C-alpha cells in the first residue's frame, strides 16, 4: 500500500542524526570551510566512536537490498534519511567522516566474501579510517570507459600506472589512515569497458602518492585528491572479482551497480543542503513577519511567497523521487532509471534552491556571516559528482527510449 509515513522509531533515529548535525557539525561548519585542508579531528573521532558502537559502518552502501537478517528492512531509505540530516548539518564535514565510502561500496559490490571481510573489517575496529574510490582521470570523467590507468600482471602481483583525480577522501584513505583506495584500471585497453577492473591499493603502498589536494568552490572540509600511481605493485588478490576480461560481473557493470546504490544517497545529500537553506529562509521570513499563505490562489501570493513555496515543493519532489529510488533497492527492484531521476532532479533542484535563497536574502544571503552562501557553494557539487546531471539525463533517456548506450550516446 502506498504510504509515506515513517515509523516512530525511525523518526527517533532521524532526530538523533539531526542533533548530531545541529550540535556537532553546525558549530564548526564555517571554520572548516574557511580553513580548507585542515582536519576536524575531534569531530572525526566522535563520529568514528559513534559508528563503532552502532556496529557495521552505517554509511556502507550496498548494491542490493537483500536482507541479511540484521539490517533494517528499508536500509537504503534509512541511509537517505540520516544522510539528509547530516548534510543539513554540513555536507563537507559529512563527506569527511571516516568511513568505507565509495571504496567500501565497490568492495561490497565487486569483491568476494573473503575480500569483503579482509578489506572491510578495519572499519569495525581501531583508529578512524577512510576508504576512497579512484575512477576519474584528467582525461576522462563521465566517460569512465575511457580509463587509461593500466594494471599489468607481473609475477605474483599487479603493477598499476596512471593518474587519478577528484578522489573524495583520497588523501585520508591513501596516506592519512590505515585505509585503502579502490583504483579502477584497465587490464586490456582493447577490451574497452570489459577490461576495466577494480583494484584495492592499501594505504602507503610504495608507488602511490597523493600529488595534490584540490581547492574547491564548496564542500571544503572534504579532501579531494589527485593520486598518482607509478609502478605501484599490489598483491594479486587485491583485484576485486576475477581477472578474466570476458565474464559476467567483476567489471564495469559493477561500477554501475555501485552507482545505482549511491545515487539516491547523493541525492539525499543534496536534499540536506537544500533543506538547510530552505529552513534558514523560512525562519528569516517568520522573523520578518512575511507570511506564507498556503492554500491561497497563487495569483494572490507575493513573489517572495511564490519563490519560497516553489523552492519548498521542488525540494519535496526531489525527496520523494529519492525515497522511491532507495525504497526500490530495498525491496529488490531494479532502480537504475529511478536512481538517475532522483539524482538529476535533486542535483539541479538544490542548486537552484540555494541560489534562490541567496537572492531572496539579499546582502544577508551573500554575507559570509551566515551559512547561506556556503550552502549555495556546497550544493553545486551535487549537480556534478557521482554522475553529472547530464549523464543522468542520458541514462534516463536510454531507459525511457529503450536505447542501448551504442544507439544513444
Amino acid at each position: 500500500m502506498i504510504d509515506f509515513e515513517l515509523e516512530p522509531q525511525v523518526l527517533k533515529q532521524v532526530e538523533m542524526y539531526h542533533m548530531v548535525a545541529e550540535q556537532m557539525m553546525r558549530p564548526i561548519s564555517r571554520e572548516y570551510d574557511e580553513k580548507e585542508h585542515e582536519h576536524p579531528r575531534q569531530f572525526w573521532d566522535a563520529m568514528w566512536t559513534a559508528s563503532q558502537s552502532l556496529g557495521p559502518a552505517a554509511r556502507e552502501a550496498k548494491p542490493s537490498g537483500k536482507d541479511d537478517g540484521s539490517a533494517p528492512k528499508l536500509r537504503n531509505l534509512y541511509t537517505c534519511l540520516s544522510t539528509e540530516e547530516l548534510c543539513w548539518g554540513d555536507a563537507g564535514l559529512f563527506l569527511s567522516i571516516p568511513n568505507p565510502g565509495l571504496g567500501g561500496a565497490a568492495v561490497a559490490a565487486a569483491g568476494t566474501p573473503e575480500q569483503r571481510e579482509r578489506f572491510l573489517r578495519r572499519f569495525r575496529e581501531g583508529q578512524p579510517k577512510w576508504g576512497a574510490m579512484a575512477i576519474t582521470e584528467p582525461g576522462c570523467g563521465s566517460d569512465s570507459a575511457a580509463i587509461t590507468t593500466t594494471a599489468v600482471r607481473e609475477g605474483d602481483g599487479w603493477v598499476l600506472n596512471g593518474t587519478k583525480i577528484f578522489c573524495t577522501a583520497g588523501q585520508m584513505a591513501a596516506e592519512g589512515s590505515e585505509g585503502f583506495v579502490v583504483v579502477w584500471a584497465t587490464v586490456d585497453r582493447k577490451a574497452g569497458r570489459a577490461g576495466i577492473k577494480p583494484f584495492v591499493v592499501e594505504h602507503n603502498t610504495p608507488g602511490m602518492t597523493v600529488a595534490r589536494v584540490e581547492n574547491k568552490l564548496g564542500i571544503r572540509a572534504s579532501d579531494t585528491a589527485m593520486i598518482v600511481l607509478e609502478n605501484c605493485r599490489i598483491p594479486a588478490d587485491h583485484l576485486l572479482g576475477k581477472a578474466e576480461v570476458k565474464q559476467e560481473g567483476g567489471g564495469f557493470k559493477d561500477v554501475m551497480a555501485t552507482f545505482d546504490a549511491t545515487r539516491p544517497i547523493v541525492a539525499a545529500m543534496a536534499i540536506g543542503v537544500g533543506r538547510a537553506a530552505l529552513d534558514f529562509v523560512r525562519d528569516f521570513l517568520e522573523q520578518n513577519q512575511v507570511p506564507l499563505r498556503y492554500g491561497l490562489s497563487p495569483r494572490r501570493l507575493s513573489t517572495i511567497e511564490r519563490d519560497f513555496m516553489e523552492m519548498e515543493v521542488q525540494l519535496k519532489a526531489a525527496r520523494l523521487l529519492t525515497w522511491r529510488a532507495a525504497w526500490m533497492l530495498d525491496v529488490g527492484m531494479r532502480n537504475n532509471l529511478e536512481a538517475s531521476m532522483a539524482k538529476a532532479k535533486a542535483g539541479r533542484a538544490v542548486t537552484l534552491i540555494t541560489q534562490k535563497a541567496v537572492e531572496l536574502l539579499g546582502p544577508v544571503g551573500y554575507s559570509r556571516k551566515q551559512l547561506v552562501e556556503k550552502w549555495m557553494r556546497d550544493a553545486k557539487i551535487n549537480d556534478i559528482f557521482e554522475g553529472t546531471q547530464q549523464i543522468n539525463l542520458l541514462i534516463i533517456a536510454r531507459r525511457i527510449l529503450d536505447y542501448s548506450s551504442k544507439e544513444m550516446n
Partner: protein
Amino acid sequence: MVSFEPSDEQKMIRDTVAAFAIEEIRPAARPADESGEIPADLIGKAWELGLVRGAIPETYGGYGDTRSAVTGAIVAEELAFGDLAIALHALAPRLLAYPVLEMGTAEQRESILKRFGTDNFVAGGAALVEPRFDFDPSALATVARRDGASYVIDGAKCVVPLATKAEAILVYATANPYAGQAGVDGFIVAREAPGLTISEREKNMGIKGLETYELTLKDCRVGAEARLGGGNGINFTRLLSESRVAMAAMATGVARAAFEYARTYAKERKAFGAPIATKQAVAFMLAEMAIEIDATRLLVWEAASRLDKGEDALKESYQARNYAAQSSLMVADNAVQVLGGHGYIREHPVEMWLRNARAFAVLDGIATV
C-alpha cells in the same frame, strides 16, 4: 512503513480503468474536442465502471466501496490519460455526491445519494470558480446571507460542469468573505431554483468536450436544509484538498499522454539519417518530462495518502496542485515542441493536451477523488 507500491486491489482498478481509457476514451478525445460533444453511450460505459456509484452506500443503491483518495488519484490519472474533458464529464456527478456522502446530514444523504445509486449516468455538478482574474477559493465573492429560515445567495460562478443537466448543483458561497476557507459553505441548489440563471454554454480554450456554464445567483433563496452539513456546515478545506488532489492527478495523466505520444514520435521521426530521439537535444527533453511526471505523481500520492489517513492535507494538496499545473504544462509544451510543426497541427493530439494542461493553473473544484 514507507511504500511506493499500490495495493493489489488498486492495481486491478488501475488496469481496468487504464484499458477503458485507451480503448474507449482516447479514440473519442479528438472528436469531442472538435464537436464539443461527448457521446452519451461512452459516458454510460464509464458509469458502468462504478466511478461514481461505487462509493455510494448500498442502502442508496451503490456498491458501498471504501472511498480512498489514493485510489481516486490513480483512477483520475488513468481517465485523464485517455482524455481530460471526458474524464471530467464522467466524474462530474461526484462533485455533488461525494461532499454529500462525506459531510451531508442524514436527510441530505437520503435525498441526494439515492439519485446516484442507479444503472444509468446521472448528471451532477458543483459551482466553485468565479469569473474574475483574482478568483481564490479562499476568498469567495459569492455571498450567502441568512434570512429567517432560508439563505439568500448572491454572486456569479463559471466553469460549472453539466449545469443544465444536473438536477441540483452544489454552490459554494460564504457568509463572510474575510473568513477564508473556514467561512465557506456549500448549498444544494436545485437547477430550477428562483434567482438562479444558467448562461449559454461556455467556450473555453481547452477541455472543449466538457459542457460548462456560467451561473448567476441573484437573490437566490434556498431553505436552511440546503446548507450542506446542516448546522455543522462543512470542512471546506478538506473538500478543496480532495479536489486539488483530483485535478493534480488528472494533470499527471494529461502529461503522461503527451509524453508517451512525443516519445513514440521521436523514435519514428528521422532527421539527418537517424531518429530524432537519438539526439540529446530531444532525448533530454523527454528525460525531463519523465522526471517531472513521476515527481508530480508522487506529490499527488503523498497528499492523497494524508487524506486517506484523515489528516489535514491543505498544504500538501496545494503543493501537488501548483506543481502539477506547472509540470503538466511544461510536459505538454515539450511534447508539441518535439513534434515541431506537426505538433501544431490538429491532426496530432499534442496541441489539444497543451490547451487542456493550461486548465490546471486556472480551474479549481471541477473534479474530486
